[in-house]
């Protein structure tokens, strides 16, 4: 290929700049989080003179981010579990089993990808209220499951469709039932995809603000991201405290990303390439 030597380095320069532009905002936030409120008011953009964990501690303690983090964890784990179970079941059925209405059901679920949350927002909460799940953990878990299920089903269907049908035929010949095939064959085979899609969904749930804000009305049910955004209200001008909250909320996510980078990117790509 025609890029060797100098030209590769020429391309590398804008790419390096872009890389800086990608992490700069995070470093900027980290810097702000090191300032006191007073320091910020007097010099908003300069480098912080102080270094400390005060804003982290304040955000964690006085703003109750600790409780919120626990809520986020509960809800995220619950949602991911449901998403993976329902997603893999449907994905297996859509990709490998032949049944009447399969196409319509698949299109129905896929079509839900095209329904922005705001479109159903008003009636959605009425339905949730009517089944008595507003302001409860199961309610939020269900809301997240509904939100991210279409994407999950799509990726799992796509992944399972790459598994050759002969494997399933062979299992049938060995006398396995359809459900047995799901449990003993598809779940283990789908592990790489399940891990990737699970992590991706965990990120989505963890990062959500809108759905959580509206579903969880009482303060002790609030999730972390809502708690963090509440630090930056019209009535609070303590930007360094907010920055501290941002850094703390983003930290677990970044750690997860650094550890599971490959699984995450695999999950994203599960649906993109031909089988």
């Amino acid at each position, binding site marked *: 290929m025609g890029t060797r030597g100098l030209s590769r380095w020429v391309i590398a320069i804008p790419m390096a700049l872009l890389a800086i532009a990608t992490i700069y905002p995070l470093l900027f936030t980290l810097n702000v989080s090191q300032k006191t409120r007073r320091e910020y*008011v007097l010099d908003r953009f300069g480098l912080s003179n102080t270094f400390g964990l005060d804003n982290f501690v304040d955000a964690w303690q*006085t703003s109750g981010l600790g409780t919120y983090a626990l809520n986020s964890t509960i809800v995220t784990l619950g949602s991911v579990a449901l998403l993976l179970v329902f997603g893999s079941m449907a994905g297996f059925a859509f990709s490998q089993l032949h049944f009447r209405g399969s196409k319509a059901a698949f299109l129905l679920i896929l*079509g839900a990808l095209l329904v922005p949350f705001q479109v159903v927002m008003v009636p959605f909460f009425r339905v*949730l209220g009517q089944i008595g799940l*507003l302001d409860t953990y199961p309610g939020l878990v269900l809301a997240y499951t509904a939100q991210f299920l279409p994407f999950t089903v799509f990726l799992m269907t796509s992944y399972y469709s790459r598994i050759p049908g002969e494997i399933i035929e062979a299992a049938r010949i060995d006398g396995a039932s359809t459900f047995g095939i799901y449990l003993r064959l598809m779940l283990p085979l789908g592990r790489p995809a399940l891990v990737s899609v699970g992590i991706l969904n965990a990120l989505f749930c963890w990062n959500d603000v809108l759905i959580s804000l509206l579903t969880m009305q009482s303060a002790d049910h609030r999730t972390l991201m809502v708690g963090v955004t*509440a630090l930056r209200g*019209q009535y609070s001008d303590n930007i360094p405290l907010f920055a501290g909250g941002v850094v703390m909320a983003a930290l677990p996510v970044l750690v997860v990303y650094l550890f599971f980078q490959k699984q995450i990117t695999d999950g994203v790509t599960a649906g993109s390439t031909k089988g």
Partner: protein
Amino acid sequence: MPAALSNGTRSRRFSTRLAAVAIAPLVLTLAACGAASDDGGGSEGGGESGKLVVWDWKSGDPTAKAYVDAAKADFEKKHPDVEVEFVAQPFDNYYTLLGTAIESGSGPDVVLFNGGAQLRDRVDALVPLDDYLGDNEERLAGWEAFQDADQTYAVPITLQGEPFYYNKKIYEEAGLDPEAPPTTYDELTDVCEAIAKIDKDCFSLGNKEGIGMEFHLSTFGPGVFTPEQYDAWLAGDRDWSSPEVKQLFEMWVQQNEDGWFNDGVNSTAMFMDEFTKFQGGESGNVVGLISDVAHWKSFDEFLGDDLGVYPGPIVNEGGQSLMPAEGGIGYGVTEWTADKELAYDLVDSLSSTDALTAFYADAGAIASDTTIDTSDSGIPVVADIVSWLPESKPNLHTVLSADTLDLLHRLSQQLIDGKVTVDDALAQLAASDK
């Protein structure tokens, strides 16, 4: 997808009828019934006696702690068995959350409101309180902001007003007399010219939300209008094509063109950036508040003795120099609460003299309670502000509907941006404000 779509259309005709019968008629009433009976959805709230839920955006602040504690203690004396839970919601989304609660018919028993349009738009979900008020009517001030069609829907706990704050140090640097703030628009113009010369902003202004324009209207309005015109505006007789209204809008454009404000007015958030700039000594003046936020207490923290205050300057011959003020925030009782009297008792505690004294002292709010002594605040400007209150008149902007305010916000940004003319803007506002 086609299957889903055709299903949807087929069932629509049936469910349309269903909606007319069941879903649609008076959602609020339905919601209220739902909450009162079993489903309600509220594991908390919903209004069983034994627990009351309060929504606000204040109780999370450390400065409001003494206030909340005092109110709780007062209520506990009256009803030792009833638990009270305060839920501090993020202000940005407060009314959206409240809307969801009203829709679903489950939610808080007692709610904090800003006076004006936000309250008036939701009176259907609130209990008229006139029969409960008793002595409070005398003791507290600022009721008008919480009334609609002669009924009272919330009890004021603070007064809100907009004085001009200024930084004496910057006045001095600009060669101005720090003890003689401007009293007329001409003097203010001179002040701004002098401050421009030392490379500071005359005013810090953040109009990202469009609220800068609200303050502009209400603080320069008294100096432009005659008292009769002012009262007519408040009474609903608003002539958007009058020369005075046009003058007010032209002042907004002119001030921006003359460089009175910081750069990037439309991208500067009022409560986070505008006041930060003033506190940081980047400007000579700012239009601030007297309660909640951006007030004497928070400015004092940074400017100390350099902080000064003055009421809006006189612009026209017939104009007045006054600080507009009215009820700021207040508590109302929701329609769906189980025991309305119990809920009002909590509102009563939340507006008790003890609680409000704590709120004044810690949070820096001018409380609605006229019996509170404010002479010992240690912050000189408070005495000035309190002394202006008796002559205050309600804000010009709070009598506008939420719709018209929203339009005003957008037009004020377009005026700064040069995307609309004053005449065009006024025509749009006149059409909206009917």
